[in-house]
């Protein structure tokens, strides 16, 4: 008998990096056709399309015109850096609700050369002081009342963890980046695949202490797409399709609950912890069962706090956990073996699907030289400031 499980049937990510010869829709189409081919299906079988493209706006219908217009419902989703994970969850929910038995989720971004991404609220200063906005501000507050830039915000998030528990030095954060850059050398789809020494990382351009340039997520172009399918439908498909299908054991989306201080520094901790708790309970899986984790290292300072938030270590123990070597690819809980956002790259809306692709590829035993041997369970996590946390736990097919 069929269960109410939902599976990833096909999944694909494009090379992350510079794609000057392709526009946003081309990249989305490449990922879409790749995911359909991977799953052995076509647009004809898709009952829903969820599409994410944060900077360009809704692209679902433009994408249909390049890959197949079948009249199905399109949801153009936007949820900051959790956009891709949200798109997957929209398709997942439609299938779970029984509205269709297969759905498609796509995320794409063209971000190469975008430069420093600020907080979004900066406006031009006027020639006469005129109070405006919810703070009655007479000038842009970014840079005048602290920073709203992403590197600065996440630097403060990492430093706050250090203030609370100690041990979070510049060198420690740089070592986290050293790990991810080392991992990226095995990932041909990463935007940057160069190993960097600790000294190179620490001596690189300082962006916002303690984050130097290689400790920041890399702006780049890229797309990823996934086809999800109901358990009942999967049972009608071929042995090969069932063997390669990857079970979505938990699909969770949370936002940040009110807490003191969240108005001045976004709290990325509580919503991640809440999502992790829900996901582990739903999947019946604990952090120690995870064979690999792809988490949202938008900055090296962020990776540290998420070890704790995802309960990969005891509360307050992230520094010791990292120093034990646990998160290197040969450690007990390999984290970001893809190279992470710091080297694989961070084409915003694609990120939350690309990290599922990484996990799925290991669970299928198809990760080549960077394969985590015998991987059966993995977790993928993204955070969008504002805030949204998307978290998925995937399991290898028993078939």
């Amino acid at each position, binding site marked *: 008998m069929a269960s109410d499980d939902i599976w990833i049937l096909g999944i694909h990510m494009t090379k992350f990096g510079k794609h000057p010869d392709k526009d946003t829709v081309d990249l989305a189409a490449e990922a879409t056709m790749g995911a359909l081919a991977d799953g052995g299906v076509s647009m004809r079988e898709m009952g829903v399309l969820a599409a994410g493209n944060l900077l360009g706006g809704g692209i679902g219908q433009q994408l249909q015109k390049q890959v197949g217009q079948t009249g199905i419902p399109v949801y153009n989703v936007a949820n900051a850096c959790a956009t891709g994970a949200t798109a997957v969850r929209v398709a997942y929910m439609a299938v779970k609700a029984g509205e269709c038995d297969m759905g498609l989720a796509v995320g794409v971004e063209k971000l190469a050369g975008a430069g420093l991404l600020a907080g979004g609220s900066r406006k031009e200063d006027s020639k006469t002081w005129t109070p405006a*906005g919810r703070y009655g501000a007479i000038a842009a507050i970014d*840079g005048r009342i602290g*920073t709203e830039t992403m590197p600065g915000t996440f630097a403060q998030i990492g430093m706050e963890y250090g203030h609370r528990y100690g041990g979070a030095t510049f060198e420690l954060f740089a070592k986290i980046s050293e790990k991810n850059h080392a991992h990226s050398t095995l990932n041909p789809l990463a935007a940057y695949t160069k190993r960097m020494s600790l000294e190179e990382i620490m001596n690189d351009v300082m*962006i916002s*202490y303690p984050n130097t340039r290689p400790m920041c997520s890399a702006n780049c172009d890229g797309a990823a797409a996934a086809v999800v399918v109901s358990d009942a439908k999967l049972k009608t498909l071929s042995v090969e399709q069932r063997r390669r299908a990857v079970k979505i054991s938990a699909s969770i989306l949370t936002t940040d609950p009110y807490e003191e201080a969240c108005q001045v520094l976004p709290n990325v901790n509580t919503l991640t912890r809440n999502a992790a708790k829900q996901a582990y309970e739903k999947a019946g899986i604990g952090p120690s069962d995870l064979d690999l984790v792809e988490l949202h290292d938008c900055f090296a300072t962020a990776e540290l706090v998420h070890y704790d938030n995802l309960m990969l270590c005891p509360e307050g123990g992230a520094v010791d956990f990292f120093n034990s070597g646990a998160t290197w690819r040969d450690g007990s809980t390999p984290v970001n073996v893809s190279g992470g956002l710091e080297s694989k790259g961070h084409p915003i809306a694609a990120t939350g699907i690309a990290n599922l692709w990484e996990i799925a590829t290991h669970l299928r035993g198809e990760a080549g030289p960077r394969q985590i041997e015998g991987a059966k369970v993995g977790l993928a996590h993204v955070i969008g400031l504002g805030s949204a946390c998307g978290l998925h736990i995937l399991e290898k097919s028993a078939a």
Partner: protein
Amino acid sequence: MVVGVKTGRECLDRGGASLGALASGDDRSSLETSMAAPIPLVDYLVLGDEPHLVANECTSCGARFFDRRNACAGCFATDFRKVDVDSSGEVRAFTIVAFAAPGIAVPFVSAIVDCGGTSVRANLLNVTPDPEHVTLGMKVRLTTSSMGVDEAGTEAIGFGYEPA
């Protein structure tokens, strides 16, 4: 990255808290009596003899907000009162920003300051912006600084925290 941390909704009216205080005069403006009273960078900065920050405090749960809220984000109640925020505090997190928007001098220190249980974000002023001089847990106090005058001759005053 992001979609902004803040609500995109803009409103042109402003909370009255700081306007009243301005009318009572600030000794900076008395230096040049022909000038209009100085204007604070944001309406939750109250100028005057003892510049300080004010917050909208939920009368139901005590949550404090620097902007106006339609309802409390913590408990959904709709009654707020103006309260003064402590002007001394402790640095709970900081970053030294080397790349910023045009017009902002770098490097500068951005910090989250715990002011008697109310968290404030601000720049640290009157301190050398390097990790040897800025430390987690350092004691600081509120200070103000001039942002210059506009075309109408009005001076704007910003705020930050300096080592106590």
